């Protein structure tokens, strides 16, 4: 926030300075706007087309998620987590399950861990492809990359449907494992999808990566410095694009990520182009993880038999479970008082926290840059507003 105010002060924001030529124009971008990724509003003050002030306004999609969860059973909140970041329900499930497992001290069987990694990385693939599609849409590419992304996402969603019964509202993870085992033939189909994914990424890259217009539009736009990224608590691909070497899969060693060989790509400029490229590279690493996980997946039970579905009451205590979601650090903080409902339930939404620096990135830029910067942050309003 301090940098924003400093920048605003240095830009001399008094309306109409001596010459009287500079008229500031205040426009409300959103909540009904084609490229605010949902019902999000930015009150933008413009000098010509240059942004001098930007105030994000959100809460249009607030639905009291945390309070509802405090009045639900532990299991009852699971389907609601699907609706946080509705692009990636399975990682939301996972983070919540992880928090409850920590709280109640539940062990997860081997096979279930593999299932979680496979579904989680598939989620990452479809989130990143779609994000890049949306980013290009914001840049005015008349939908072509978005359509390719959706074509690919559809294949992954079919896998999700075959496994969990729903394309987006999966409600798949359970405390101590997963709800259902893989149906017959699912793994072969998934292997085929993952094997075909690098070819799609090649196509995507040849369409986008070296495009001069794209490079000109994104390079040195919305630069997020490493210092600001760290102090603002930015996480996920956005932090890594600024050169912050922070991937919870590597830091926390949660689940079974230690068993897979994968690399964490890091950016050096912290601009929109880096954020876009980091996501592309991450998808290739996800494909690596998926191939290893699908090769090694063992037989066995998929859920801890000791965990009850009904009448689940963890002992009093608190726990914070977090995973590396596609958008960043997704964490759930739970306090139990021994009753069937959590005493306190709190989500750390990566979308919201990554969004806090929007003004710092947009000051002094064009209107056209705002939408690109916002697109590169990767927000889903379901998660921002909760």
């Amino acid at each position, binding site marked *: 926030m301090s940098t924003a105010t400093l920048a605003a002060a240095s830009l001399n924001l008094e309306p109409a300075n001596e010459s009287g030529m500079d008229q500031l*124009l205040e*426009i409300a971008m959103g909540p009904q*706007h*084609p*490229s605010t990724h949902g019902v999000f509003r930015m009150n933008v003050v413009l000098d010509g*087309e240059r942004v001098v002030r930007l105030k994000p306004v959100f809460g249009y999609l607030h639905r009291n998620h945390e309070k509802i969860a405090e009045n639900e059973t532990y299991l009852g909140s699971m389907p609601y987590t699907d609706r946080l970041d509705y692009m990636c329900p399975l990682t939301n499930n996972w983070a919540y399950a992880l928090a409850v497992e920590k709280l109640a001290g539940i062990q997860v069987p081997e096979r279930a861990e593999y299932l979680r990694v496979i579904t989680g990385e598939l989620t990452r693939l479809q989130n990143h492809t779609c994000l890049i599609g949306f980013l*290009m*849409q*914001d*840049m*005015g*590419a*008349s*939908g*072509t990359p978005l*359509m*390719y992304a959706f*074509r690919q996402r559809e294949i992954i969603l079919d896998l999700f449907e075959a496994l969990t019964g729903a394309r987006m509202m999966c409600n798949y993870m359970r405390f101590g494992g997963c709800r259902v085992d893989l149906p017959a033939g699912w793994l072969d189909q998934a292997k085929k999808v993952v094997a075909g994914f690098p070819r799609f990424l090649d196509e995507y890259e040849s*369409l986008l*990566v*070296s*495009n*001069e*217009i*794209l*490079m*000109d*539009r994104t*390079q*040195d736009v919305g630069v997020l410095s490493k210092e600001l990224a760290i102090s603002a608590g930015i996480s996920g691909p956005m932090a890594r694009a600024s050169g912050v*070497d922070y*991937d919870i899969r*590597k830091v926390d060693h949660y689940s079974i990520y230690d068993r897979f060989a994968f*690399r*964490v*790509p*890091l*950016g*050096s*400029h912290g601009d929109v*182009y*880096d954020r876009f*490229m*980091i996501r592309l*590279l991450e998808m290739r690493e996800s494909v690596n993880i998926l191939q290893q996980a699908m090769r090694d997946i063992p037989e066995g039970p998929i859920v801890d038999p000791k965990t009850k579905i009904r009448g689940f009451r963890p002992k009093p205590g608190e726990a914070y479970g977090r995973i590396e979601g596609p958008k960043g650090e997704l964490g759930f903080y739970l306090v139990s008082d021994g009753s069937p409902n959590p005493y306190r339930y709190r989500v750390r939404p990566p979308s919201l926290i990554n969004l806090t620096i929007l003004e710092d990135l947009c000051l002094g830029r*064009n*209107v*056209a*840059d*705002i*939408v690109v910067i916002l697109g590169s942050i990767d927000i889903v309003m379901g998660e921002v507003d909760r």
Partner: protein
Amino acid sequence: MTHLALMTQHLDQIFVLTSHWLLSYLPIALQPLCSAILSVAAIIIAFATLFALTTLLERKGLGRMQNRYGPNRVGPCGLFQPLADGVKSLTKEDIVPIRADRAVHFMAPVLLVAASFMGYAVLPIGRNMVMVDMNAGVLFFFAIGSLMELAVFMAGWSSRSKYSLLGAMRAIAQMISYEVPLVLASVVVLMQAGSLSTVAIVNMQATYSGIWPHWFVFTPWGFAGFALFMIAATAESNRSPFDLPEGESEIIAGYYTEYSGFKFALFFLGEYIGMFATSGMAITLFLGGWSAPFSFLTWIPSYFWFFAKLLTIISVFIWIRGTLPRLRMDQLMNLAWQFMLPMTLLNLLTTGIWHFMLPGFLRWIVCSTMVIVPCILLGSGLKYKKKFQIRTYHFSQ
């Protein structure tokens, strides 16, 4: 003259002959007026149909590029989709913002469509098929084109919407900036043809050496001029990647944000008609107008060639739209003033040199070098100045 040749000639002139035949039934005094009305009606019908077809072609083509079918529900292969769109836009509620300047708000789309249709007066669509063979035809065309800026401003200003105003400002800045390279790129043809009359320019190109036509695009300066003209034309007609004035992801719909129903459709029509007109001018100036690409194909009616070329250019427009993201305002301006303007001026010089050098191999080499080398130098210079590059990334351990 053989029977066949006579028939092809009649086929070529079928519209002209029909018009003469119809007019011959009228009294002499009324003939000029009726002739004008007839040709205006013909142009409006022909190009409105082309507009309908193009919207369909665009949606289908974009669809295929994006791995979808495109519209295929209304009529066979979705052929009646434009009709359905027309009915839809006609029956929609016409909303005028309460604070809008009603008169100007109403007049803007009318002026836009009128201005964009007026350009066709000087376009030779086929042999002997031009409405007015003006002495200063090309000048007329650009003069009418400048009227569109006024229409765009009227639309943006009268809506009293901030997005409209931003869009109008963008549009005017863009159109004025690209009008300069557009006109300068076409001046090379005027220099070579020595005439401002479109008919004279096409007639000059409709001759052949062997089977090859004398189109201006087949010379170094002509090719460069054509490329520059097309880039500027894309920007003039607000097509992707220069569609900033409407930039839907940024400023909703630009200057026609506050238009709905039929007025919106009129803007849409105006944009497309303007695009056809500019493409038609490019065909007239560089691609030999209605002339056939090979001398042995001259038996095919001349108007067929004009529309074939027009559709080719439109397809390229659609292809580009399906591929490229939009430029930003400052990048657009930089392209106009730092690349297009120097290149068009250089092209003028090249044309002069071409004109005064003896025909031969040397002339080709000198002029090609004069066009290609600066283009590459300027391009990479700009790229270097902007410092954009394909980056390599490292991985943490």
